[in-house]
């Protein structure tokens, strides 16, 4: 309300230096918070000034959908991505050329890569070996797979039969006569041409499997037309080198792998 007694107050203005409860100012105002926008005038030469002046007083203003008004705010609180923690210390110094330390950095990288590669290859090899060896035969099976024979127990001219891997095994202590006979057989005439030397390591000892190559019967030792082995099933005659000489069998008796660990022992398998 504008009262006559207050009118004079509108022609002066006073500000209170120290506030108290007695003299409270009349109106309460809420100061708006404003975001300052500065549009500095850019003209500082006569030419740029004159270009900034519109010629047409009938000014028109345009706007449109999407991006017609673009406001860019500059931010100072955005962290610039920093990868220093992950960078090689040799390349962090901006005053040094990174090419200077290139060789040492490369050597280190190659060394680490090479070392890791070699050790991982070795680890991989041992793992694979372990798995693959689990598939092979166990020790008890392997023990059964070999047979050791004392040769002194076998007299000359005698063929002894052993059981080896479920099959009969013939060990024959050949006489010098038999050896010379078998050595002189003409290989060309044989059905399965093999010289005696190919079938024995020590000419005194013939080691063959006692399985007829015809249908798998067990031949009889020291019989037949050639003084070697004779298969009673279908009449196959083998000589003292275990070679097929007569009858239906197509091949010589099979020679297993064997060694002589000492002079008087034989190891088959």
């Amino acid at each position: 309300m504008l009262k006559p007694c207050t009118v004079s107050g509108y022609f002066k203005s006073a500000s209170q230096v120290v506030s108290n409860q007695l003299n409270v100012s009349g109106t309460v105002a809420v100061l708006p918070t404003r975001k300052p926008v500065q549009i500095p005038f850019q003209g500082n030469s006569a030419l740029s000034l004159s270009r900034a002046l519109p010629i047409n007083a009938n000014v028109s203003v345009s706007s449109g959908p999407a991006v017609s008004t673009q406001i860019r705010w500059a931010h100072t609180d955005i962290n610039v991505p920093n990868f220093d923690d992950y960078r090689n210390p040799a390349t962090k110094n901006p005053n040094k050329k990174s090419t200077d330390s290139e060789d040492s950095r490369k050597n280190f990288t190659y060394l680490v890569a090479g070392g890791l590669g070699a050790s991982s290859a070795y680890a991989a090899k041992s793992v694979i070996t372990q798995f693959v060896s689990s598939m092979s035969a166990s020790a008890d099976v392997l023990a059964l797979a070999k047979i050791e024979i004392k040769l002194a127990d076998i007299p000359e001219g005698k063929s002894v039969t052993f059981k080896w891997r479920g099959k009969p095994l013939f060990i024959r202590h050949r006489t010098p006569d038999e050896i010379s006979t078998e050595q002189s057989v003409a290989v060309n005439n044989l059905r399965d041409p093999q010289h005696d030397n190919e079938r024995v390591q020590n000419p005194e000892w013939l080691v063959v499997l006692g399985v007829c190559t015809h249908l798998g019967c067990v031949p009889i030792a020291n019989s037949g037309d050639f003084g070697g082995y004779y298969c009673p099933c279908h009449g196959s005659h083998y000589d003292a080198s275990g070679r097929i000489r007569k009858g239906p069998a197509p091949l010589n008796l099979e020679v297993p792998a064997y060694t002589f660990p000492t002079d008087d022992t034989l190891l088959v398998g």
Partner: protein
Amino acid sequence: MASNIAKSTIFRAVGTRGYAQLAPVSGSTNYQVNVKTLPNKLVVVSADNDSPLARVSIVFRAGARNETSENLGAAHVIRTAAGLSTQNMTQFAITRNIQQLGASLTATSDRETISYTLEGTRQAVEKALPYLTEVATQQVFKPWELAELSDRLRIDLATRPLQLRAVDLLHKAAFRTGLGNSLYAPKFQIGKISSETLQHYVSSNFTSARGAVVGLGLDECKMDELAQSLTLDDSNGHVNVSPYKGGEIRSDKGGSFAFMAVAGEGASVKNPKEAMATAVLQRALGVGPQIKWSTVDNGILSKAICSSEGYASSAISATYSDTGLVGVLIAAPAKAAGKILEGAVKALKSGNVTDADVARGKNQLKTALLLHLESGSEAVELLGKQAVLAGGAMSPCELAAAVDSVSTADVRAALSKAGRKLTIASVGNLSNVPYADDLK
């Protein structure tokens, strides 16, 4: 049908390549302008300048001068609201489809008109026409979308340059209401202009009798089709009469520069001869250096001001449907502002226009107009204003001939009319700017 085939792009290319000199990218410089008025009084203007870019504009006499004290700022809101959801399309659909086609849609408003302009390649424009008609004629102003516009209006206000405010204040002082309304909504109106207010403004001003459709680079029959497809009321609407009154407004804003606009009454569109004379007068007064990088302006103004300070002056003019303004806008360092303003006022009040001034003014005006009509975007704006204010449009040749017909006596008459009563508006550091009644 046969004529349509000949107009398709490939035949046009063959025609221009094979039988004529190749048209430049901006199109040919001299083209036929066809004007037609539909039974509902909508003006249709079509022209083809053989440019690969086409422009279509829908213009209404709905600028800021039509605002009243109740809906002050409506034109600003409507301009900014271009592209918001309409009756049949969402904001997203409009933006997405226009961007997908590579076209651009802008709403431009001045004191007399609001125009919606679609620009793009010919194919894109033809496809985007439905969006243009939706945005220009089917506004709904959803309240929740309007609420989001407030910030944009505030930014528009905050980013007005001072020279623009000087021109705004000049209008305010010269016309008070009507043409005195600003192009921008006043701060107290932001957020207070409701959807209903805008709807009422649109329905009373966006009518066929107050509108025009302008096409540059589109078929005449396509333009007819577009114009006839617009669903518009055909009422005349109300015209805010605002005669020239004159006065003074000062707005002290500090800073190092003073922006001063001084103007007297100019010519209206209804009197084309006087309007042309006023336009020549503006150029004779001098609109800044015309030679690249030069700082010398041989106009009447710079001779009258005769100052060595780093200032700039430019004659300004505006032509409205019932009146106009012609004068000068000055940017001057605060210290020297007083002397410079005195010189400019002297030139306006008792300047002498010689034949040489008029000849130079005519040449400059012709160059400016022809360059305007070569540039598609400015041409479509110029054609649109002519169509909606004068009901017709002139081709480049006709305009040049009209400029040639101006005599020195006409220009002198225009200057003496302007000098009769001056309006002064000033913004910036006004410490040395004299008041209107101190200027002799």
